């Protein structure tokens, strides 16, 4: 804990490793990795499909248990945080995870019912009017029409659903937000809009961000620090500018070249999202 600011925190991973399966079918999804996140982090994680990005993110929120190594939050291990109800709820409130899956809403509940649950349980907000105010505020923040709250998941577009997923996490005002490919399933113009919304919200509420993606433009736009993963291993890390301009590892170079070849000037990392924000 470096400052007296109430929103500050420290999350560290030391030699965290994850294996799936046993025997000859064992897959090492994450090789031992060390990491530190705090309220000022804007960490981007990239890597090809299957490189262990999601597994890393899911271990932090306790959806997977590390095979070895320790993840600790505020000097206390995550396992410990999750071991009893009170501290589990506290941890869930402070560290939120938005999954890459856009089917993360119960098809039988309206968005209103889905989004108010974390507010009730994690924030203990009970009064109806306060719930409504907060839901409306968060919707406005994410440029969502509050009228959509009364809809069911199949009745909105993919981009709207993704923003509701963000709303569900952001409504509890976490200190650390972990986004797992939240824009990958969206088309390019919506991607830009959602990225802007996340960036603005994170900056305004001064929360830490870990942003997982396999697309380079999104990550470079939203984060200041970059982690490149391959086969579960962190092959390169550093400030975004440094990694993009002078990549050290051959794999990173390969990745950058692939983007340089495929991306048109319009969707290049620097110019893309800003332009789209103007259009928004």
């Amino acid at each position: 804990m470096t400052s007296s600011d109430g929103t500050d925190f420290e999350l560290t991973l030391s030699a965290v490793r994850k294996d799936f399966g046993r025997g000859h079918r064992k897959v090492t999804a994450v090789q031992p990795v060390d990491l530190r996140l705090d309220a000022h982090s804007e960490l981007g994680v990239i890597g090809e499909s299957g490189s262990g990005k999601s597994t890393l993110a899911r271990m932090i929120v306790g959806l997977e248990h590390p095979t070895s190594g320790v993840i600790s939050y505020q000097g206390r291990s995550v396992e410990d945080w999750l071991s009893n109800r009170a501290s589990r709820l506290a941890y869930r409130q402070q560290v939120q995870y938005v999954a890459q899956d856009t089917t993360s809403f119960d098809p039988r509940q309206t968005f209103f019912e889905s989004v108010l649950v974390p507010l009730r349980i994690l924030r203990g907000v009970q009064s109806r009017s306060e719930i409504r105010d907060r839901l409306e505020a968060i919707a406005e923040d994410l440029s969502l029409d509050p009228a959509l709250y009364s809809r069911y998941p199949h009745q909105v577009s993919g981009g709207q659903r993704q923003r509701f997923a963000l709303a569900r996490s952001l409504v509890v005002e976490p200190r650390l937000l972990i986004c797992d490919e939240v824009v990958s399933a969206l088309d390019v113009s919506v991607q830009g809009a959602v990225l802007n919304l996340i960036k603005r919200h994170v900056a305004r509420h001064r929360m830490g961000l870990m942003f997982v993606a396999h697309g380079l433009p999104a990550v470079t736009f939203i984060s200041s620090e970059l982690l490149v993963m391959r086969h579960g291993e962190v092959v390169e890390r550093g400030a975004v500018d440094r990694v993009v301009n002078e990549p050290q590892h051959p794999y990173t170079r390969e990745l950058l070249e692939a983007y340089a070849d495929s991306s048109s000037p319009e969707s290049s990392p620097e110019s893309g999202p800003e332009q789209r924000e103007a259009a928004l």
Partner: protein
Amino acid sequence: MAETLIAKTVQAPPRRPARKRFGWLRVTLAFLPLVAILVVALFAPLIAPYDPVTTVAASRLPPSAAYLFGTDAVGMDVFSRTIFGARVAVQFGVIVALCSTIGGILIGTFIGLSESSRGVVGWIGRLLNQISDYLIAIPSIILGIVVVGIMGSSDFALIVAITLCLIQATIKLTRAEVLRVRREAYLEAAKLAGESPLRSALVHVVPNSIGPAMRNMPLVFGNCVIILASLGFIGVGVKAPTPEWGYMISSALSSLMLGRWWPAIFPAIFVALSVLAIAYSSRAIPQVWPYLAANVKKRFRTERNSRA
């Protein structure tokens, strides 16, 4: 002829119309048989002219205007008994369908959720799963004989016995559905939102996996009628004078050997008609259900909007 069939098939494979035309007629026809049985059961005292469990005339009178289906070996009115038989069958059918559906959903959910988990919970789940597998290996009649033997002849014992015979299908259907729902991302989202496993099971897993079990309910109802009649027929069903179809048939066998067919044939016809009707409805209702649901919802919504 066959050539034309094959030729036709090959030229134009039978294409189902993309959307079948639904109308209220179809909906009515789907529900009619089931509703008819329920109505007979409900209004049995109004329909039946005599008390079903008392002697009202000489024994084995042939059908006449006074005794529509004749009288049986002890002089009870076969028509009244047959009508009240519908009531007995429906009572058992409804209770067993509810018990085995609710019980099957709860057990199936538990098995599905505990599968591949360690510790006591996992063991209990596997045990329940194994027991339900063994249940299907026992013919229902034999299970009925044993359970009624153990618990003594009573309505409660019969309900337990028939539920045990029929619960397995519901458990399996629900378990398969739970295994599917279990992988859904919204369960992880619920966990991250702080919901407890129990709440998440009740709020998300159960509502999203009861579909097949609910659709199976009319079938359970029909099978209950069949098993009840069969147990009654071999003599381990309801107690003696109760107008139960299977028991009526078996006690009419001596009359049948004497050439008096009416005490046996009418309950038999009613068993056949009712199980066929239930089978028909249980097949037709799921077909018209989407239409019905859509229309009811639409009407409900417009009403609400007009009020607002």
